[in-house]
């Protein structure tokens, strides 16, 4: 298998995929616990509009995606905090607006071509070393901030009202969480694409939750599942040669989730807590 990564493009793809695979579950755990699993999708759709606006403004697409993802994430969080994003309708409107705006701007610029597929579904093989290191740096910042504020983010994820009643700066911590999500979505854009990146926030964490009895354990298992998904999916794509790695990575994570669910049930049968009233 090591022979697969002797080519430089494959090595770059591995480095980028590993970074996103390891970082995404660290943020995803807090999102899933708070039932915000779809917010990564919303930010991903907005980032597509950011890519188009970046091209329109004459800057690299990644910076356009980052700027719009961060602004969009802050706006989504404000709507959620004010109770205006309670239903899935508001989030759906954001999805459609982001994708449609991106498509309109790109087609107006005559840039609605094959490269759009790379933005939506990833283009791991086409990343340069500078793009790869940017992804690694974004992922490192995300993990470092998530670990730095781990306990505070956990208390808010556990019970927002009690966190507020205990004097924690809940609004600032919520903004931090969506900002980390925006950074991660931007980092994962080249790896698995804006349509699929949110799956790496959610599926490895869901798989980890089948094997753990604690939040910390779930995050740990989630990182393991994220790394296995990205390496497994990339290896599958390289071996077959014609498959797009972004999609194989996501399918690998789904397979791991199914495996963890079956394995977790067996483990649960062996481990039953003492439930007394």
């Amino acid at each position, binding site marked *: 298998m090591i022979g697969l990564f002797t080519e430089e493009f494959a090595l770059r793809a591995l480095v980028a995929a590993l970074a996103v695979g390891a970082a995404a579950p660290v943020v995803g755990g807090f999102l899933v616990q708070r*039932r915000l699993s779809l917010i990564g999708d919303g930010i991903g759709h907005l980032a597509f509009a950011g890519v188009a606006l970046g091209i329109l403004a004459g800057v690299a697409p990644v910076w356009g995606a980052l700027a719009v993802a961060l602004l969009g994430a802050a706006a989504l969080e404000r709507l959620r905090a004010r109770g205006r994003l309670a239903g899935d309708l508001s989030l759906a409107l954001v999805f459609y607006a982001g994708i449609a705006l991106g498509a309109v701007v790109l087609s107006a610029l005559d840039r609605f071509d094959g490269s759009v597929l790379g933005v939506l579904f990833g283009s791991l093989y086409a990343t340069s070393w500078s793009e790869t290191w940017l992804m690694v740096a974004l992922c490192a910042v995300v993990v470092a901030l998530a670990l730095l504020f781990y306990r505070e983010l956990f208390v808010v994820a556990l019970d927002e*009202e009690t*966190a507020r009643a*205990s004097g924690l700066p809940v609004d600032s911590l919520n903004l931090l969480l969506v900002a980390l999500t925006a950074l991660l979505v931007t980092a994962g854009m080249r790896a698995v694409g804006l349509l699929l990146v949110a799956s790496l926030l959610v599926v490895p964490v869901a798989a980890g939750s089948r094997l753990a009895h*604690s939040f910390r354990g779930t995050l740990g298992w989630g990182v393991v599942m994220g790394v296995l998904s990205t390496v497994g999916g990339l290896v599958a794509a390289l071996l077959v040669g014609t498959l797009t790695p972004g999609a194989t990575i996501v399918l690998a994570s789904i397979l791991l989730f199914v495996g963890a669910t079956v394995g977790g049930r067996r483990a649960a049968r062996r481990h039953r807590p003492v439930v*007394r009233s």
Partner: protein
Amino acid sequence: MSVSGTAPTVELSGVRFGYGPSPVLDGADLVLHPGDFVVLSGPNGSGKSTLLRLCLGLLRPQAGTVRVLGSSPRDPEVLRRIGYAPQGFRGASSLPVSVTEVVAAGLVPGKPLLGRMPRGGRRSVSAALEAVGLGDLSAECLFELSGGQQQRAVLARAMVGDPPLLLLDEPTTGIDQSLRPAFVAELSRRAERGVTIIAVSHDPDDFHEAVERILLIDGGRIRSLTHDEFHDHLEIRP
């Protein structure tokens, strides 16, 4: 064991609050000192939980003043010194969370942002778990436990930082009758050490041995009753 010579821990003066046109609390007055242990009772919708939420700064009075630990309850420094236990675990249950993690969460507000957890944090968590009889379930997932066990974990979270004020919403609900006296005795020991405790309860008899005064919210105001007076009130207005 009230220490009435000291500054009040909780002070409500002429508080008015309502969710609609008719107020839930109207001219509510209350003064509690360090060591006061009271039960707050009243029918559904009488304003018991509202009073706790006012003390936690989650609601603002429409008239009157609320002061907690000598300051506004919207001051984060004040809130960090309050132990609050809602009725049951009210947070999200999407992912597994261990009992230890839930209780240790009670120490987080007391530490500086980006700072380390307080020394002896693990010992405090263990002691809080033992106090509510959950010592042997510390590693279990909270959501695999019974409602009563979850309630005890929430109580341990409120008590773990040894806060000078405990606000407990229906703390004995879901807890086995046989375990209630030990839990109430634990609260009494804390009150003797100067902790002020407000326990919202539909069943003040659970606290008969520990509490002399029952605070009844009646017509928007707070009345202080003995156990006998409270039962007389129930007979008049069942």
